[in-house]
């Protein structure tokens, strides 16, 4: 355990450093306690945090709230039609180029799985 260091004074061994796990920390403590002349062990070792977990999976909105949100989002774009299925929003119809970005910005906040843009851009 190269990361651990110990100092001994008057029979008291003080351990410091970083252990990989609680089990390692306990193991090194009992090992040191068996050393002749050690009366007490002060175990100041820290335990390394576990490696960071994989990123949480992406949350996709259920079709009901997603459909409602999509209906609200497109209501001011009379040429736009939208279909929602299994989280995928499919856009058909037409839209002015100047309005496309704004509509997309709104749709992207609804937590869809993906947005399939089949709009004709005027």
């Amino acid at each position: 355990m190269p990361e651990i260091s110990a100092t001994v004074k008057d029979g008291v061994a003080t351990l410091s450093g970083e252990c990989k796990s609680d089990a390692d920390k306990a193991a090194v403590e009992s090992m040191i306690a068996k050393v002749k002349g050690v009366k007490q062990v002060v175990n100041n070792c820290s335990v390394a945090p576990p490696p960071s977990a994989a990123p949480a999976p992406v949350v996709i909105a259920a079709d009901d709230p997603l459909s409602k949100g999509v209906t609200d989002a497109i209501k001011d774009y009379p040429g736009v039609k939208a279909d929602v299925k299994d989280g995928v929003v499919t856009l058909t119809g037409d839209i002015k180029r100047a309005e496309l970005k704004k509509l997309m910005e709104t749709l992207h906040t609804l937590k869809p799985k993906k947005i399939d843009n089949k709009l004709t851009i005027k």
Partner: protein
Amino acid sequence: MALQDKYRELLDTARSVGVTNLQAREQDNVLYIDGQAPSGAAKDQLWNVYGKLDPDFRSGDVVMNVNVSTMVPGSKALVTTQQSNLNIRKGPGTDQPIVGKAAHHEVVTLVSKTNDQWWLVRTDAGEEGYASAQYLSPQN
């Protein structure tokens, strides 16, 4: 990681404009980008880069949910409808009755956020109700 390469400039821009809690996750051939932009201008910049890398947003391989962090309760927001008044409703949904209006380019106070689509707002005239987030822009 192919999508992270395709959209590298977008992710680099997100970092350089100071998007916080930035997450970029690939799942089923879609790149999900989440975070909070420090300003409306920063969010605009991201959308401009996205529109450049994927013209007209045709590929369907990105879902970018980046909010503006200055849009917080108590702050003011500008009504950015195309021209018309903004409907203020009794509840969060376009099926809810209209209880007031805010004019185009009026400034309203954000009271609380219902979700990414709806805010409870108050006008200077004292009308309070729910407005669609897509017509509220941060003041900056």
